[in-house]
């Protein structure tokens, strides 16, 4: 009965999936500012900030790297994604279907759904570290890949089951709760970090930078961790949301904007979530390392609990849950695009089960930086395809929206571009040793080049 009611409610929601958003639904800059700030202050922030500490980021490298990297991310939203979003005003999936054809878009959806499952899985694991506090279960270490034991698996399965159940009921209520929680979460991050500064030796604000260099971001990686330089931090900050800006996933959001300048509102998310929250969670982790004599155990829940008490643990649970829940829901939607006749709740249940299984493995949390970079890299070529198809093709005599115009289900040029650019990135990494964080930039230009060349060859048969 409840499911039927909710399904009926969801049926009524009009999201303009296959038509441009009408002017009556356009929104101003401010609503995007709040949305981005909320979306990018999430469970992942409790992991990414500490991982910078673990990877031996230097204080100045981190402060400047994040400042510049986030600035480049904001520019990418504003100049790459937003202009197309407000001109076309359709979802990424619909635009991809017009360019790449239905089958290739389905392949994209499948990959996207899988990535969403892993991302949600890491967030369930983050929440589980807080829920496990009263039971004193052993937490995973930075170098661990496999579950630490049966108690860990039980807690993860319980958290995963609850999260999945809520996700099957829909997205509305969780979204509302996330909106309420966002300003509180930001302040908890900030308050917890300020309150522990004296324990790290900061007695007045003038001491901060010296202590930051000596005790927080010391420039020395923990055992078994690679060293992060200024460039790692800059490129990570720029590309951690690559799927959203350069990869164009946020076309679906920014199509509601009155003007393309709404892309600059992403600064709300970058400088609150990806700056203040990363720095704050790094400070908390540095104190944990100091107090535990560089124990390699990595659990955001206990770290936040020791700094901010029950509020800190609640913040970790809520941050993880409010990120995992919509991510599972989105993964379900992406899969449903492939299987439109299947019931949403059944698909969400399958997605939730995969997510929960993935969450049992700590590797997902410990390797989150690499995973986030991989996620952006895999989806990036589709963004390059849209960018070139929209801006360049009409100017060089090539057909834009080829699949829609020629009634194709599969644009071969787009497939060659997607696979070709990823294979090229892999080869670059193999031959030069370049880390995954840096591959997005050459990868984008390679995707552009491959798409232009393959489209010239592929479209010849229609011009004859």
């Amino acid at each position: 009965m409840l499911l039927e009611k909710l399904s009926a409610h969801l049926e009524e929601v009009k999201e303009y999936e296959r038509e441009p958003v009408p002017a009556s639904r356009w929104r101003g800059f401010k609503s995007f500012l709040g949305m981005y700030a909320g979306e990018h202050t999430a469970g992942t922030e409790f992991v990414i900030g500490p991982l910078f500490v673990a990877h031996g980021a230097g204080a100045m490298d981190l402060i400047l790297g994040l400042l510049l990297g986030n600035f480049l991310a904001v520019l990418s939203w504003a100049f790459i994604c937003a202009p197309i979003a407000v001109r076309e005003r359709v979802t990424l999936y619909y635009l991809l279907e017009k360019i790449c054809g239905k089958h290739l878009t389905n392949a994209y959806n499948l990959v996207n759904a899988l990535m969403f499952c892993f991302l949600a899985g890491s967030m369930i694991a983050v929440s589980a570290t807080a829920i496990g506090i009263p039971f004193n279960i052993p937490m995973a270490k930075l170098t661990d890949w496999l579950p630490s034991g049966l108690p860990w698996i039980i807690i993860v399965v319980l958290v995963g089951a609850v999260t999945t159940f809520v996700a099957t009921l829909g997205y509305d209520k969780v979204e509302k709760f996330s909106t309420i929680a966002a300003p509180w979460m930001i302040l908890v991050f900030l308050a917890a970090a300020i309150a522990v500064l004296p324990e790290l030796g900061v007695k007045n604000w003038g001491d901060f930078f010296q202590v930051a260099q000596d005790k927080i971001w010391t420039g020395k990686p923990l055992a078994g961790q690679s060293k992060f330089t200024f460039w790692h931090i800059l490129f990570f900050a720029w590309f951690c949301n690559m799927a959203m800006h350069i990869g164009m996933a946020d076309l679906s959001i920014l199509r509601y904007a009155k003007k393309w300048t709404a892309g600059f509102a992403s600064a709300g998310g970058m400088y609150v979530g990806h700056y203040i929250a990363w720095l704050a969670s790094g400070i908390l982790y540095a104190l944990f390392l100091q107090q535990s004599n560089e124990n390699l155990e990595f659990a955001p829940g206990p770290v936040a609990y020791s700094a901010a008490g029950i509020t800190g643990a609640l913040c970790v649970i809520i941050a993880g849950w409010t990120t995992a829940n919509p991510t599972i829901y989105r993964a379900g939607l992406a899969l449903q695009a492939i299987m439109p006749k299947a019931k949403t709740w059944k698909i969400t249940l399958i997605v939730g089960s995969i997510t929960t299984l993935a969450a049992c493995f700590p590797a997902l949390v410990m390797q989150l930086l690499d995973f986030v970079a991989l996620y952006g890299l895999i989806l990036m070529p589709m963004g390059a395809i849209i960018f070139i198809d929209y801006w360049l093709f009409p100017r060089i005599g090539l057909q834009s929206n080829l699949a829609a115009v020629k009634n194709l289900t599969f644009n071969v040029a787009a497939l060659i571009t997607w696979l070709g650019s990823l294979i090229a990135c892999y080869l670059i990494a193999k031959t030069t040793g370049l880390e995954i964080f840096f591959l997005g930039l050459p990868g984008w230009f390679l995707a552009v080049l491959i798409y232009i060349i393959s489209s010239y060859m592929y479209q010849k048969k229609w011009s004859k």
Partner: protein
Amino acid sequence: MKILLKLVSMAGLMLTIIPSIGVFYEVISQEENKYFMLIGTLLWFGPKIIFKEK
């Protein structure tokens, strides 16, 4: 009523952040700060959840 609820919520947010500055200047202890943060959390979420304020 609506204004009162908003004031309570705002007080909740203030209680979440301001005591931490007190800890920094050694006016209150870390343990007291944790209590204030918890009270702040309850004040922030309580009215919004109970009265389903948007």
